[in-house]
């Protein structure tokens, strides 16, 4: 047994992030750590790396207690993290990056053991790379491999991957998996964190599922299945998560033809009816968010036409103001950076797009603002001490409800929801799914972009897939099968056979 965790607990103030996590990572095996966003994976990562100290529980590495006080400590003990966000220093050379943090020096001068560096680069499949070139010249995938090379320099016992494939192409994923196999064969214990269950089935030997800060199940991957893992992750049957509210599709409200942005999207055309929930699937970086941003006037449009209710509203793009005016509204994928002004209050955030409704001669009606936001706080079951509490004091799910409240109060006809459930707990997710269904039943037209396929299949009426800026034809969700979706997402090939 390489690394064992027993009943790890960690709280931040009153919030218990980890309520008892146990897991076992064996040498020469890949352990998949799966869980919904918000289940506690990132806190667990921090505890494992030494960035946070656990409140209770113990960790054992190679039979000895493992108690890192900081990430450097963790590395010295042989536990290395490959983070989701790249930690390559772009201005330094490849060799400098490989030894970063493990530099040896003589007389104060850094030594670059070139032979050793070349050897580890070769181990991660980068033997063709000149160690002296700047790291910024490498592709994203290779920068990630460079991080693995860095971990190898440290004589790692345990290597932990955090969602490593979220920004990789199918080919890069293959290369990465080869390296992971190599690590396995070297006797390293690999912990693989992901919510792409297909990948987990492919690469992992065993799994541990965590939910709401607890480990709720573990076993051998060979004896599990994707639906089994999902039910463990979600903690309830799938029907409870995806409520169905009957809604009818009306007339076509939005028609987009040949929309092209600067790089993405390319020549995108589709139509959307009142009461329709259209899902857009695809890999990260396929151009889904860019499509939404072009439609909403945030990114430049090179060519194309946007028609609403049969009338051409925009030729080759417009501004956000015009888009809002025409009846669009947008929930950004990036809640913290774009969706919310975090140090403003709940009420101030909610009212931001309709201040004209609650002001006269430039003066705000603060009472009206308060009553409107209280109304949405109640309706959306947003948990907070008061509508004057800063948005930053809320959990991810409740923050997302602020943005939703803003959109619902503005009450436009066409909603773009970009990853509305990213990073929020299962309960809030189910509430957001219900809300989407409700809005469709009120005749709203909704586009839902998500990287989480079960959610698209559970919530949407129709689905299209995006691959490198190209949009597949639209079909009813029931007419797609999993294979067809992944095929288009990874290669852009549209296979139109009826689903079995």
């Amino acid at each position, binding site marked *: 047994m390489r690394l064992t965790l027993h009943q790890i607990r960690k709280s931040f103030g009153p919030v218990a992030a980890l309520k008892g996590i146990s897991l076992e990572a064996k040498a020469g095996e890949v352990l998949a750590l799966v869980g919904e966003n918000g289940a506690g994976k990132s806190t667990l990562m921090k505890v494992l790396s030494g960035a946070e100290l656990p409140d209770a529980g113990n960790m054992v590495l190679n039979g000895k207690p493992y108690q890192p006080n900081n990430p450097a400590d963790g590395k010295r003990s042989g536990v290395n993290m490959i983070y989701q966000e790249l930690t390559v220093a772009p201005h330094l050379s490849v060799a400098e990056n490989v030894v970063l943090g493990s530099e040896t020096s003589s007389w104060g001068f850094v030594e670059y053991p070139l032979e050793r560096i070349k050897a580890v680069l070769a181990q991660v499949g980068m033997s063709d790379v000149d160690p002296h070139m700047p790291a910024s010249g490498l592709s994203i995938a290779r920068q990630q491999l460079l991080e693995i090379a860095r971990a190898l320099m440290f004589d790692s016992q345990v290597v932990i991957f955090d969602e490593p494939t979220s920004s990789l192409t199918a080919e890069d994923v293959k290369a990465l998996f080869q390296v992971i196999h190599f690590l396995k064969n070297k006797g390293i214990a690999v912990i693989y964190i992901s919510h792409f269950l297909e990948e987990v089935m492919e690469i992992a030997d065993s799994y541990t599922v965590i939910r709401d800060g607890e480990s709720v199940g573990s076993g051998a991957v060979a004896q599990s299945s994707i639906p089994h893992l999902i039910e463990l992750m979600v903690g309830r049957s799938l029907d409870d998560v995806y409520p169905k509210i009957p809604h009818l599709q009306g007339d076509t409200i939005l028609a987009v033809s040949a929309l092209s942005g600067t790089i993405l999207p390319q020549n995108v055309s589709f139509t959307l009816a009142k009461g329709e929930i259209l899902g857009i699937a695809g890999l990260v970086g396929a151009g889904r968010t860019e499509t939404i941003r072009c439609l909403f006037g945030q990114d430049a449009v090179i060519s194309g036409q946007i028609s609403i209710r049969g009338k051409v509203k925009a030729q080759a793009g417009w501004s956000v*103001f015009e888009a809002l005016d025409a009846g669009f509204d947008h929930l950004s994928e990036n809640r913290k*950076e774009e969706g919310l*002004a975090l*140090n*403003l209050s709940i009420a101030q955030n909610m009212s931001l797009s309709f201040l004209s409704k609650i002001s006269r001669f430039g003066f*705000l009606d603060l009472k009206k603002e308060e009553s409107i936001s209280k109304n949405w706080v109640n309706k959306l079951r947003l948990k907070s001490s008061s509508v004057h509490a800063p948005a930053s004091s809320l959990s991810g799910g409740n923050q997302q409800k602020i943005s939703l409240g803003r959109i619902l109060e503005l009450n436009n006809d066409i909603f773009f929801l970009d990853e509305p459930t990213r990073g929020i707990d299962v309960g809030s997710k189910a509430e957001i799914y219900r809300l989407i269904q409700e809005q469709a039943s009120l005749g709203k037209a909704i586009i839902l972009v998500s990287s989480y396929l079960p959610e698209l299949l559970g919530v949407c009426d129709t689905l299209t897939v995006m691959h490198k800026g190209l949009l597949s034809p639209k079909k009813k969700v029931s007419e797609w099968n999993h294979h067809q979706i992944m095929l288009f997402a990874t290669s852009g090939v549209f296979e139109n056979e009826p689903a079995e």
Partner: protein
Amino acid sequence: MKNLIVKIGPLLALLAVYALFAAICPPEFLGFYNFKTIITQTVIIGIAAMGMTLIIISGGIDLSVGSQIALGTVVTGLVLNSGGEDVMSVGGGLAVLAALAAIIICGLCGSIIGVFSAKLKIVPFIVTLGMMQIARGVAKWLANEQTVSTPQNPLQTLMIVDPDPAWLVFAPGVWIGVLLVAFTFIVLKYTVLGRYTFAIGSNEKTALLCGIPVATYRIVIYTLGAAFAGVSSVMQYSNLTVGDPTAASGMELDVIAAVVIGGGSLSGGEGSAIGSITGALIMAVLRNGSNMLGLPNYVQEIIIGAIIVGAVALDKYRNAGK
């Protein structure tokens, strides 16, 4: 409870500084005349700090305030002299015109800053660093590199500690300052402009997403902020009774310090009119008390520097506790 302490933190600091000097200074420090002096000495920085509060809350900065004030004094002087060199005194009409001219020229500086930072997306630090030099240069050019002496006029009475009529109690400039603090307070709390200022400073992308014309509002905020500096320049003129292109050198840092001590955050989204005026008062009390104790200038500088860093460190500390 904790929230309350945070809110009145700068006020407590002001009281503490005042009490400290009251204990170690000669008794004149506590006299009403000295109280009036301190208040009057706060006016110039306090008014400019109101403008800076708007700018800093919106996530910007204006390093050119000192130069703008100098330019304003010169323009005030030039307008007052427009009747010719032999005039011994001018009336209220021309004085008001001179003051307006100073406010407009500063507002113009602000508009230029706004356009360059909002439309051309040059970081405000650089734009205003440039404007700091340009406004100073223009002031020297207009004044022929010397002070502009002016005929007697009503503007010169704005900053007199014992005003005439006496029932005003405080100098007219103080009352103008009080009005402007109230104005800023109301703008920030009760108007759309104020809300947008917070929103843009807190998260510009969110503001854009919500359909707020961010660039336009930035220009408005810089223009309004600079107009406050224009009012300060009139007060500065009143103090000097001449137009001086070398006046108020480095004053922008005092103005920024007042905002920061008062709880303004240089990353935007935080700050208040009351906080900033309290910050300005703290510095004025420090200067006044130190002078009364006969402490050399450098001691004041060290103390003020320590207070700025201390105020921000405290702020960080309480934010980390959240």
